[in-house]
């Protein structure tokens, strides 16, 4: 199998002028007003194109795209919360076997698994880990809206520290979510897979290029997309892109790629905005006091420094 760097040698980047016009995810879906997750899904589907076999774990994106009518223009399969990665690897292996036997023609379809943060970081983690370890040629896209939004905003292991959810309510003795967000991209990168990336819908061309790279590279790829949820985060629907921009500018969610183990920072933040700027527009953080915000700032800065050290250690020329 060729390495990721070789596969990307004649990679044609998507530019603002060459954004694909196809919409494999069609209009009329039932997402909430201002949903950032469906925007991320739409952009990812555009980057992959019509030759896509989509596998959806249970979650918002399955519910809103498939109730009585389907919003998918491509083959699509819905599976349970825990096994999106397992089913995607089964689809890939089955397709390979059918091609080998001459039953179907190889039309270059890409297998893409879409799952939410709960289906990735909590329930589907072992299926994902197994699929990444076996090295199937598929792309796993985690649309991270930082809680179980579809069932009514319950906390997941991807919920950030201090966030209010219905199962981590703030009060006299609780500050909302007590633990730090699980670092899923790093867990995926630790499997030594060819491609891992994080993306935000506020940088749509960057997001589409990352998805295109992930499907171009042979072998498993993992993309973690930050997806604002105005309903669950208690922020106005028109601010969801703004939130997706602020989270990167405040270093809370750094944008990077890992190609063959080499860390590349795709967006260096020279002038970061304080974390408070990002937190204050969302009502799920409104109960946090100055010392909580200072703690979050300290930890975010430490995580950023750690990422910079990883970039320098694995990629000395950059």
């Amino acid at each position, binding site marked *: 199998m060729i390495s990721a760097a070789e596969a990307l040698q004649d990679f044609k980047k998507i530019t603002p002028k060459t954004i694909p016009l196809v919409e494999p995810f069609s209009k*009329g879906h*039932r997402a909430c007003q*201002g*949903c950032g997750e469906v*925007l991320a899904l739409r952009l990812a589907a555009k980057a992959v194109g019509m030759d896509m076999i989509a596998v959806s774990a249970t979650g918002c994106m399955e519910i809103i795209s498939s109730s*009585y*009518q389907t919003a998918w*223009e491509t083959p699509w399969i819905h599976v349970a919360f825990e096994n999106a990665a397992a089913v995607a690897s089964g689809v890939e292996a089955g397709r390979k076997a059918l091609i080998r036997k001459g039953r179907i023609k190889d039309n270059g379809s890409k297998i893409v698994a879409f799952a939410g943060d709960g289906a990735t970081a909590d329930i589907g983690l072992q299926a994902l880990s197994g699929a990444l370890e076996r090295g199937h040629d598929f792309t796993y896209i985690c649309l991270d809206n930082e809680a179980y939004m579809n069932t009514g905003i319950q906390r997941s292991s991807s919920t950030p520290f201090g966030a209010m959810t219905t199962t981590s309510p703030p009060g006299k003795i609780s500050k909302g979510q007590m633990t730090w967000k699980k670092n899923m991209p790093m867990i995926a990168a630790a499997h030594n897979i060819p491609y891992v990336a994080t993306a935000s819908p506020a940088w749509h061309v960057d997001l589409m290029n990352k998805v295109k790279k992930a499907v171009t590279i042979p072998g498993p790829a993992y993309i973690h997309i930050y997806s604002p949820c105005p309903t669950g985060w208690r922020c106005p*629907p028109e601010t*969801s892109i703004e939130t997706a921009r602020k989270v990167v500018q405040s270093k809370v969610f750094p944008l990077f790629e890992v190609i063959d183990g080499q860390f590349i920072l795709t967006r260096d933040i020279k002038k970061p905005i304080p974390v408070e700027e990002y937190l204050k527009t969302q009502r799920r953080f409104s109960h946090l006091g100055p010392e909580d915000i200072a703690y979050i700032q300290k930890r975010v800065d430490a995580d950023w420094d750690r990422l910079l050290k990883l970039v320098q250690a694995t990629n000395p020329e950059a």
Partner: protein
Amino acid sequence: MADEGLFPWKDLPLGCAGTEPGSSRRFNTGDWRSRRYPVTDREVCIKCGLCWIICPDMAYSPDPEAEGYYTWDSYYCKGCGICLEECPKDAISWKEEKEEDKYGPACGA
């Protein structure tokens, strides 16, 4: 009322399989919008296409009649206002939408 492709659950195909790709295109999500809708001022518009690419509901599409501009579709727009917020030239603004314009005259009117 337009045919939205809705049917009773008894008519679902076996295994609840979708037989028509993209059938949600018939579903009217425009009636989720209340009281206001976005209007683009084409004098100010710089044809950047940002409204088209960042609309979660795909309400904007390239205008076949005027090249470079984008048309807005009231059938899908849920009225979130992301296009207003993100337009680099602030060419998009809210306009008041009366309920009777959307649904016809109210009962008893």
